């Protein structure tokens, strides 16, 4: 049974198998109240399938998903109370106007949703075109109508699958602003997206899926911290500083470039380094932390991560072509070699 304490989304061991294809492989999700939760993964990773299961549109092969403590598979529409959104592109009746589409959906929502039609059309700026048939709408207009349809339900949980796909830059910006605004009003948002800057800007927690499995779930800040807290350092004597850094325990990837010195370490070892530099008479001009970008981490988890999980993945199976992960590893190797050559000079 649902209760006020139940999390907006709680999935346990979700599996979806289509004959031989394992689309979703034991996915666990925990979306907390107030989260703007990013659901990331490459194409075919199982994001949309997972969202469809969450909305009760497809049956899991195994596992359960609950929305505010209710199971949409077993409890049907009752489990979707307070939940709205769309998977893939929002779809409407092309032969009806936007207003008629919303009237239909409001009728299927009940609870005075009809009175909010004008309001939600205003929010998505479709009022001037409300009487036009949706069949003549652009992709962006349909996306906005999808948001309007979701808002009719006054949701506590908004599930959005690639809401910015197909929008122009201004449309994307406005969509982000709208999502941010809705989140600020207390709506929990589960946002599936390919747009890494969008997720980085909007989301506080993320799940990254790859090949049907969650490879990371947690706070975005934790992920970026785990991805390696990097630092940039400029000193009065970079050559001497680099020697000290390499001798210093707890520092990794110490290197020099035209931008200065860089290394990875935890805060405790950074403190020790600054003391060591001071004792050696090397002045610190700037010491700035640099977190890995979400894009770096995403590719590391979804491409490089494959190598870590599968020892055989480093070898090209066809003897020629490189996978994305293999290519990334090769580029990293070349870059490291180039740095070593530069330093030896």
């Amino acid at each position: 049974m649902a209760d006020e304490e139940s999390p907006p989304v709680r999935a346990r061991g979700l599996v979806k198998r289509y004959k031989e294809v394992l689309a979703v492989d034991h996915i666990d999700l925990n979306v907390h109240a107030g989260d703007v939760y990013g659901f990331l993964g490459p194409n075919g990773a199982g994001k949309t399938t997972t969202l469809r299961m969450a909305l009760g549109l497809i049956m899991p092969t195994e596992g359960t998903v609950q929305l505010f403590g209710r199971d949409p598979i077993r409890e049907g529409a009752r489990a979707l109370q307070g939940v709205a959104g769309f998977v893939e592109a929002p779809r409407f009746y092309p032969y009806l106007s936007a207003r008629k589409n919303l009237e239909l959906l409001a009728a299927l929502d009940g609870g005075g949703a009809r009175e909010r039609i004008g309001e939600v059309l205003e929010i998505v700026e479709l009022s001037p075109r409300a009487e036009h048939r949706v069949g003549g709408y652009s992709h962006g207009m349909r996306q906005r109508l999808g948001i309007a349809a979701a808002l009719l339900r006054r949701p506590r949980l908004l599930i959005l699958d690639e809401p910015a796909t197909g929008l122009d830059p201004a449309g994307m910006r406005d969509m982000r602003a709208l999502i941010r605004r809705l989140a600020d009003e207390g709506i929990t948002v589960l946002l599936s997206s390919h747009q890494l800057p969008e997720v980085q800007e909007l989301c506080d927690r993320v799940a990254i899926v790859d090949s049907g499995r969650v490879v990371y779930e947690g706070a975005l800040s934790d992920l970026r911290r785990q991805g390696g807290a990097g630092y940039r350092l400029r000193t009065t004597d970079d050559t001497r500083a680099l020697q000290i850094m390499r001798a210093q325990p707890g520092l990794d990837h110490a290197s020099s470039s035209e931008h200065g010195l860089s290394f990875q370490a935890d805060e405790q070892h950074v403190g020790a380094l600054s003391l060591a530099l001071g004792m050696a008479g090397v002045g610190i001009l700037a010491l700035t932390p640099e977190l890995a970008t979400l894009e770096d981490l995403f590719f590391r988890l979804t491409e490089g991560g494959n190598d870590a999980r599968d020892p055989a993945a480093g070898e090209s199976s066809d003897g020629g072509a490189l996978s994305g992960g293999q290519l990334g590893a090769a580029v990293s190797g070349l870059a490291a070699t180039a740095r070593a050559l530069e330093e030896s000079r």
Partner: protein
Amino acid sequence: MSSTAVGAAPATPIGAARVRRPSTATAYRWELRKLVSQKRTYLGLGLAAILPLIFVLAQSLRNHRGHDQGNIFASHITQSGLATPVLMLLFLSVFMLPLIAALVAGDIVAAEDGNGTLKTILTRSVDRGQVFAAKTLAAMTYATIAVFLSAVVATVAGVAAWGFHHVVTFSGTVVSAPEGLLLVFAANACYLIPLLTVTAIGVLLSTTTRNSAAAVVGTVGFTILLFIVAQIPGIEGLKPYLLTEQYENWHGLLRTPTDWAPIWHSAWVCALYMVPALFAAYLVFLRRDVAGG
């Protein structure tokens, strides 16, 4: 969606106020509104309306003397306008009305699945069972409207051409014009029993095939198949239980005294087709993965 627009978001707090969920009647009303808004709907209804008009026009131009030997109503066509709707029912009941019913029944689930609108309505506050019931009822309403539209047009056109006079039944007895009118519409109502069964089969195929064309063609193909089966020698015992044989159940009403036996027979035979078809369609609809669109 400018920032300004975003700023116009509802001032009232967004929450999970417990709302009264909509009834199946609400979903049904919207299924009808969707039908009304689609051109395809009028194709079938147009056929149902225009064929009686063509028939009356053709008979008028032919300067029919009313001496056909094949059918008593055909032989009395110019003597009473009420013979026209009976003849039209006779002609249209075999193929055209099942086709018109199949046009909507075969499309009503499959089209929404293909367009992706099924997922749109299934993520609102109505249960799948309600959506299924609404769609089935809407398809049956459409079939009913097609039958009675055809009957009304045929009656009006027939009466306009040949007058509102007494009519002769299959038994050769004469019934008054008002009673004849009542019998005409009662006959059409009886014909609905097998036609709604065809509609149920259309809904089943629409639900299972997820393809409008396959469901429409499949439904019509099923009735044609039964006609062929009825012609196979050696299985005469099966014939009374074929759905297509029930298309003539209404003949019993136009006999004196009224022969109720074929009507009751068709009612339970059709139930044998309709109930499993609807139950299977319902189960499939409840359990299916909605991944279209």
